[in-house]
């Protein structure tokens, strides 16, 4: 996946807003990549472009050699607000089945796939519940199960655990890493939480505050997993990233 010199301009009645200006990025297959930056830095915009929901104003995004022209079935987007992303009138099992149905997977294969991914996400005992009866963490796991069931190459996650409490979030990290290691999917994960980025990713792309956001730096997180956040190297990385973000945060504060 290559993002090449992407520029994104939003035109509205209030004027023109240059969200991204010259963003370049390469994400390799099977990589866990985090986009990190303050709120309003265009991370979600970039993710929507990678997903194919938003066209670029200039530049290109290619997967393999093919340019991305629209939402593709190889890349499944994963939303923070699971309550609205899931289909609330369908049960846990029916939500997963929905994906298989629209992807035209042969009916006899449905049940084994559903069973496999509900077990992987620990939801197999909650099959007949509706999303409204699930906890926040369970809803996110259902989103993961539904996404994995259609066998995408890439998972795009937009601050997926931002609305969860700290304990549940840690638990979700473990589950996600476990699934990532078992399935070998490429994951692009958007967050504004430095610790979350360090504990999850292979590489972190740090983005600057908008307008005209760019990726200021890409850091390799060369630490063994599972990661120990008390490791002194983590503190070094944390400070390094914080220093990178500091001028932006000051600017954001001045604007607010």
């Amino acid at each position, binding site marked *: 996946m290559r993002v090449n010199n992407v520029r994104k301009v939003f035109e509205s009645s209030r004027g023109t807003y240059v969200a991204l200006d010259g963003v370049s990025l390469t994400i390799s297959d099977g990589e866990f990549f985090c986009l990190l930056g303050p709120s309003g830095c265009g991370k979600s915009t970039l993710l929507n472009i990678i997903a194919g929901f938003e066209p670029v104003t200039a530049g290109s995004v290619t997967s393999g050699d093919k340019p991305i022209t629209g*939402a593709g*079935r190889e890349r499944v987007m994963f939303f923070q607000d699971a309550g*609205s*992303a899931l289909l*609330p*009138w369908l049960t846990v099992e029916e939500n997963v089945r929905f994906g298989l149905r*629209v*992807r035209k997977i042969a009916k006899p294969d449905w049940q084994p796939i559903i069973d496999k991914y509900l077990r992987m996400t620990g939801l197999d005992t909650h099959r007949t519940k*509706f999303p409204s*009866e699930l906890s926040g963490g369970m809803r996110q796991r259902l989103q993961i199960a539904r996404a994995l069931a259609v066998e995408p190459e890439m998972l795009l996650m937009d601050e997926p655990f931002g609305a969860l409490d700290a304990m549940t979030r840690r638990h979700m990290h473990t589950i996600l890493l476990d699934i990532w290691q078992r399935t070998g999917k490429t994951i692009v994960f958007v967050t504004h939480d430095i610790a979350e980025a360090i504990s999850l990713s292979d590489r972190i792309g740090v983005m600057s505050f908008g307008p005209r956001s760019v990726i200021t730096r890409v850091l390799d997180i060369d630490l063994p997993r599972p990661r120990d956040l008390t490791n002194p190297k983590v503190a070094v990385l944390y400070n390094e990233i914080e220093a990178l973000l500091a001028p932006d945060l000051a600017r954001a504060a001045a604007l607010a």
Partner: protein
Amino acid sequence: MQETAAAVTKPADGAAGPDSRRSLSSSLSHVALAAGSLILAFLIWQFLSTVLFNPFLIPPPLEVMRTAVPMLMSGEILADVAISMTRVIVGFATGSLAGIVTGVLLGRIRLLHDLLDPIIELLRYLSPTAMIPIAVIWFGIGELSKYFLIFWGTFFIVVINTTAGVWRAPIARQRAAQCLGASQLQIFVLVIIPSAVPYIVTGMRVAMASSFMSIIPAEILAADSGIGYLLQKSSMLLQTNRIFVALLTICVLGFIVDRIFRFFVDRVLARYMSFVSQT
């Protein structure tokens, strides 16, 4: 009434024991309060009738009951109820159907919306009552004019609600479905329309109430049957007893129809309704 509330909470949490007991005791106190409220109303009615005003202007409750019984026994009032209800149901059903189809199209096709919205925004101020005179000229005083008037009242309410519902289908839900591989048609049928159900149902419920409000003036001014006609005829003959019977009938009828509507929604559409508060 409490039955419907129980049906709503049941899917929300499986725990049966203490919860159902609580809802039973709360339903008992609810029934007691409702009964108390009705008794109080009858007492005030009696007071107004015999002390404050006079029994001719406001016939006392028992007098009204005495008038009601023979009207019920002879089937006279039931015939009027059947006629009015048929008009309401035909107008409401066709109006809802047309309203849902139009609303979905308007919510989906931007150009159509921009084209038709100004017209709808103006026409919706023409209440069914305002349309009675022209309806009589167009359709006569037969059934068709009543169907038309109820249709008219229902249509605009349902259109506006349906359009809003289609519009507000969460973008994340549509995009998630798109990622999973859903075609535009599938997103429309399997995601957007079900997401709009709570709005559509709310619109239909308001429209049902409005149908009850508009059938009466329609029958008073342009009919020779139905509850509205009964009101009109009794007024001409200064039969206040019979007027009160007709008024009570309207109250009871509206109440029953709304409960039936809610029962249907809770039973058949519960899974589409349960998330209203959530999103």
